[in-house]
């Protein structure tokens, strides 16, 4: 290929507005930019002066795809600041609603955003003409996730039931039981999804990534655990900012997060899977073994299989939680706000989502920091693009363009999340 | 004179069982998340045993009574209207047929055969609520056109009235002549008595169905002193009532004060949220919604509760007859207390006080009437010519 430029002005099938620019000179890739032109929305700025209790609802508006992740990171950070620990059934309900979000978000990505790439369709609606049953299965699977969020959270997008300390109202056993049959179906459908995605065609593309995720001693991580990596990181969430920092690049309205010493890293399903394979439920582990995807998978295109396995796990876990559910007496733990700093990091469908809040005596937020998963993966996405384009430089331009788009979609990037802030020194801003 | 019977409280469950034997689905007061609502219950233990409610303008609270009374509360947030006149019903569904269309014969609630409707037995209907049902009878079931949804439900219902032995903070049924004791309109009526003599119910049967039911429940003929005990409780309740409304010439008062400045005053407080009309046991306004599927081949029409407080209520193409909240509040109150009398020969208000308790900002219909009277009485806003016209209309 001679001098050429791969340009995707408006990257489709991702959440938010992003672009790709790859410049090729001869046989060499000279420039790669994964640009984010989504306008900034200044969340950290206007969180100041708001009540601690508003953080879950306000930050959920950073992203309509993974509002639960924002709510969970926010409530955990607040509870950390006030020294509260939510346990028992309330804790389980939080896992349950997170299962719902994973099923919904993964279902959306697998069937509607990612699979069309593998099968050569522009979108799932076109794919529905060739594979009607598969698309319907995907929709139904996604719907099951939404149903969980709906019952526990009140609605699918920006649920209203999550609060610091627990929930406004806990579901009755009867309400949760309405989900059981759907989830049993969904678990089967997820297993089929694992088998189906494993049969897709994957480009040969493996990289030596540093995977970063939470790790919990007893469970596959949603809300709690230490931050670990495949290259030896093992820290308390509180230490996040000692190890990671954000950089501003000129071509993007989003900050890029990097490990202070080792640079770019990889968060999300693949990271969780590789670092927590042993914590998956038996049925999820078996399905992984069945399709030959084991711990240590380093081909990001195969994230579609891993998402399917996580979906299967989330269905299974949701069923476990519902089966043992007994409504707690009280829907939340009383919260007495106090001065302090709190940290929260949870596993959004796309990877770790970090919140840090500084709370004043009056319970008002003095300062907030939020690092969404897409900011963390952004640098790695550019890396992948560079590597992938370099090694596929002889592909026809159209094909290479599409494949590059697919490379980005491997990460299920959520651009709306990533642009919650821009590089501004808020400390100097009068509030 | 009707004979008074007596049931021991421990035998109340037999009443439930007998109703169930007769095929009734029982709806009664029960505690749900901090309030006493009317919902399906199975037995006497579902009743709010030992609970009461404290009500005042914009405030409601459940409290323990310190005894084991079954009906020691005042009034639920919602009336029985929900069951006889459901909030949403499908009127019909229809399908396109060529250029024409066909109404599906079994499509709507209106045409649900009466046999397949639930057989409701209402337990704990307060005298004011019985009055409200009578009023809705006049609204829905009293002329050439009737509301079949209401009529079919009403025909089947079994009413167990419970006379009031305490007055709620927003009750004024005495003023509206609708309580605290029901004289008719029920199948049986209970008065709950807890005293040194024990815990029992004085029962009056008000219909053949009621007599039939009583024949299945162990009872005795009530003694004179027991009847007197029950009567005394009801009388005390009437005296306890701390709210009242002077209904003398109330229609004339309101018609004469359609332009009172006081409506502007209420409008500064009124939220036009429509809560009062939703909780009112007699408010009957509805609207319809037409819907289609995406193909436009199948259509449905739904009827749902509406309120004269909504902006859409009096909207016609090109204008709105009542766009100010002043006019909307006036419409509601004047309709309820005045024009209702012209329309149906009865006041639309039963003095249950729900509109006072459940108004989020505590607007009190009895106080507003007083203020209108005060201001009107000064002659400042009172137009004597108008009262004359009113009287002419009466003759018409």
């Amino acid at each position, binding site marked *: 290929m001679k001098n050429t430029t791969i340009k995707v002005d408006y990257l489709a099938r991702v959440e938010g507005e992003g672009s790709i620019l790859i410049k090729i000179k001869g046989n060499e890739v000279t420039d790669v930019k994964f640009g984010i032109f989504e306008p900034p929305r200044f969340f950290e700025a206007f969180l100041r002066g708001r009540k601690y209790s508003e953080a879950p609802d306000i930050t959920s508006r950073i992203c309509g795809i993974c509002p639960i992740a924002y709510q969970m990171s926010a409530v955990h950070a607040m509870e950390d600041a006030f020294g509260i620990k939510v346990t028992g059934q309330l804790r389980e309900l939080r896992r349950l609603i997170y299962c719902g979000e994973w099923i919904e978000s993964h279902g959306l990505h697998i069937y509607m955003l990612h699979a069309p790439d593998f099968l050569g369709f522009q979108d799932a609606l076109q794919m529905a003409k060739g594979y009607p049953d598969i698309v319907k299965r995907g929709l139904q699977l996604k719907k099951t996730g939404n149903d969980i969020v709906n019952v526990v959270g009140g609605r699918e997008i920006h649920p209203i039931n999550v609060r610091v300390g627990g929930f406004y109202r806990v579901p009755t056993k009867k309400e949760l039981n309405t989900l059981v049959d759907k989830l049993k179906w969904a678990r089967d459908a997820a297993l089929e999804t694992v088998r189906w995605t494993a049969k897709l065609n994957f480009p040969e593309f493996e990289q030596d990534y540093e995977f970063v995720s939470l790790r919990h001693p007893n469970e596959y991580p949603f809300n709690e655990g230490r931050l670990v990596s495949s290259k030896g990181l093992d820290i308390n969430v509180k230490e996040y900012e000692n190890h990671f920092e954000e950089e501003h690049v000129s071509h993007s309205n989003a900050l890029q997060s990097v490990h202070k010493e080792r640079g770019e890293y990889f968060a999300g399903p693949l990271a969780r899977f590789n670092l927590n394979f042993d914590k998956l439920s038996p049925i999820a582990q078996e399905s992984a073994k069945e399709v030959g995807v084991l711990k240590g998978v380093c081909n990001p295109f195969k994230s579609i299989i891993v998402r399917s396995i996580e979906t299967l796990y989330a269905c299974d876990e949701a069923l476990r939680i519902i089966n043992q559910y007994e409504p707690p007496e009280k829907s939340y733990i009383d919260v007495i706000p106090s001065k302090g700093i709190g940290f929260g990091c949870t596993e959004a469908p796309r990877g770790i989502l970090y919140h840090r809040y500084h709370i004043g005596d009056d319970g008002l937020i003095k300062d907030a920091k939020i690092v969404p998963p897409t900011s963390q993966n952004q640098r790695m996405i550019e890396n992948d693009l560079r590597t992938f384009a370099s090694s596929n430089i002889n592909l026809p331009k159209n094909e290479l363009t599409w494949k590059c788009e697919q490379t980005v979609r491997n990460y299920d990037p959520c651009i709306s999340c990533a642009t919650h802030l821009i590089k501004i020194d808020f400390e100097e801003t009068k509030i | 004179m009707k004979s008074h019977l007596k049931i021991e409280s421990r035998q109340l469950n037999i009443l439930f069982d007998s109703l169930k034997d007769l095929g009734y689905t029982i709806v009664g007061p029960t505690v749900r998340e901090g309030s006493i609502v009317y919902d399906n219950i199975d037995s006497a233990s579902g009743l709010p045993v030992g609970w009461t409610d404290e009500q005042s303008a914009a405030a409601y609270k459940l409290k323990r009574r310190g005894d084991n009374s079954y009906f020691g509360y005042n009034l639920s947030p919602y009336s029985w209207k929900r069951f006889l006149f459901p909030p949403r019903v499908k*009127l*019909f569904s*229809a399908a*396109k047929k060529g*250029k*024409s*269309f*066909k*109404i599906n014969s079994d499509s*709507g609630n*209106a*045409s649900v055969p009466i046999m397949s409707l639930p057989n409701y037995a209402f337990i704990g209907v307060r005298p004011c609520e019985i009055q409200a049902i009578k009023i809705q009878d006049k*609204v*829905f079931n009293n*002329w*050439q*056109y*009737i*509301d*079949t949804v209401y009529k079919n439900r009403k025909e089947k219902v079994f009413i167990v009235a419970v006379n009031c032995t305490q007055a709620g903070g927003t009750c004024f049924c005495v003023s509206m002549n609708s309580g605290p004791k029901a004289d008719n309109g029920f199948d049986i009526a209970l008065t709950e008595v807890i005293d040194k003599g024990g815990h029992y119910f004085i029962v009056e049967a008000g219909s053949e169905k009621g007599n039939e039911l009583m024949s299945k429940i162990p009872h005795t003929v009530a003694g004179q002193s027991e009847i007197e005990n029950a009567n005394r409780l009801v009388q005390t309740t009437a005296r306890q009532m701390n709210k009242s409304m002077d209904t003398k010439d109330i229609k004339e008062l309101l*018609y004469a004060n*359609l*332009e009172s400045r006081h409506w502007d005053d209420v409008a500064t407080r009124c939220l036009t949220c429509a809560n009062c009309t939703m909780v009112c046991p007699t408010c*009957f*306004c*509805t*609207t*319809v919604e*037409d*819907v*289609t599927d995406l193909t436009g081949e*199948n*259509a449905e*029409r739904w*009827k749902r509760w*509406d309120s*004269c407080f909504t902006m859409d*209520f*009096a*909207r*016609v*193409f*090109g204008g709105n*007859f*009542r*766009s100010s909240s*002043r*006019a909307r509040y006036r*419409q509601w109150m004047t*309709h309820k207390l*005045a*024009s209702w*009398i*012209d*329309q149906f020969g009865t006041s639309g208000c039963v003095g249950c006080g729900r509109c006072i308790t459940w108004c989020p900002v505590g607007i009190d219909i009895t106080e507003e009437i007083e203020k209108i009277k005060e201001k009107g009485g000064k002659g400042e806003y009172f137009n004597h010519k108008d009262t004359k*016209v*009113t009287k*002419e*209309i009466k003759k*018409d």
Partner: protein
Amino acid sequence: MNSNVGIDSMFPLPAQIRKVVWETEDTFTLLLEPDNGGSDFHFSPGQFNMLYAFGIGESAISISSDPSNKDNIAHTIHRVGSVTSVFSQLEKGDVIGLRGPFGNGWPVEKAKGKDVCIVTGGIGLAPLRPVLYSIFNNRKEYGKIFLLYGARSPLDLLYRVELEKWGKMKDVTVQVIVDRCDTSWKGHIGVVTKLFSYIKLNTANTIAMICGPEIMMKFTIQELSQRGVPPEQIYISMERNMKCGIGLCGHCQCGPKFVCKDGPVFALPQISQFLEKKEI
């Protein structure tokens, strides 16, 4: 009188369009034949039907045809909202739904032996056309007839051919006035009440029937009263937001009256107290 009482009072019956007549640029008349043939359909001048556009909704439309003509039930419709827009696109052979007739009618019986003064504006002429037909069918029983009709412009006049025909009849005075026009219009210009200057009412023996926008009716009533027509001889037809048409939904109240069942036609004393007040 009404066949559809009770259960199906909320069910529209299919009615086929026999003919569409465009009266003006935005007003048209649908001639309908109910499914069961028109033979059962009796109505009094002034009554209305609820017309249903499949899946779209209903609109209360006065009947504008001759009550003695059972074949064609006419509705003259002003295209203003979504329902009437759908009606405006229909053709001969299309089917709409019909419930009715509802409401009371004009005092055609009471007016016998008297002069009749009809004052209308805009689409308000439509519900009064059946009155004129009734009178002309029994011409001897009535005295002089006055029709005072106001419209926006000469192009907005309804039933132009008939207006001309009626105007030529003996003892019938038709006076038309418009709000605005160019120089081709030789008729009157101004508000409808101006037309009273050009007629001589025997006020004691006249029944006045008014239908038009509420504000027009208000100033017409003032004018009639000033000229000495007693209120009980003045009738008006009210417009409200009618949903059910049968007095059950509460929407069309004006004071103590349900416009759909107590009206739409009222003798002035029944309603005047409320008509005078704002936003009743």
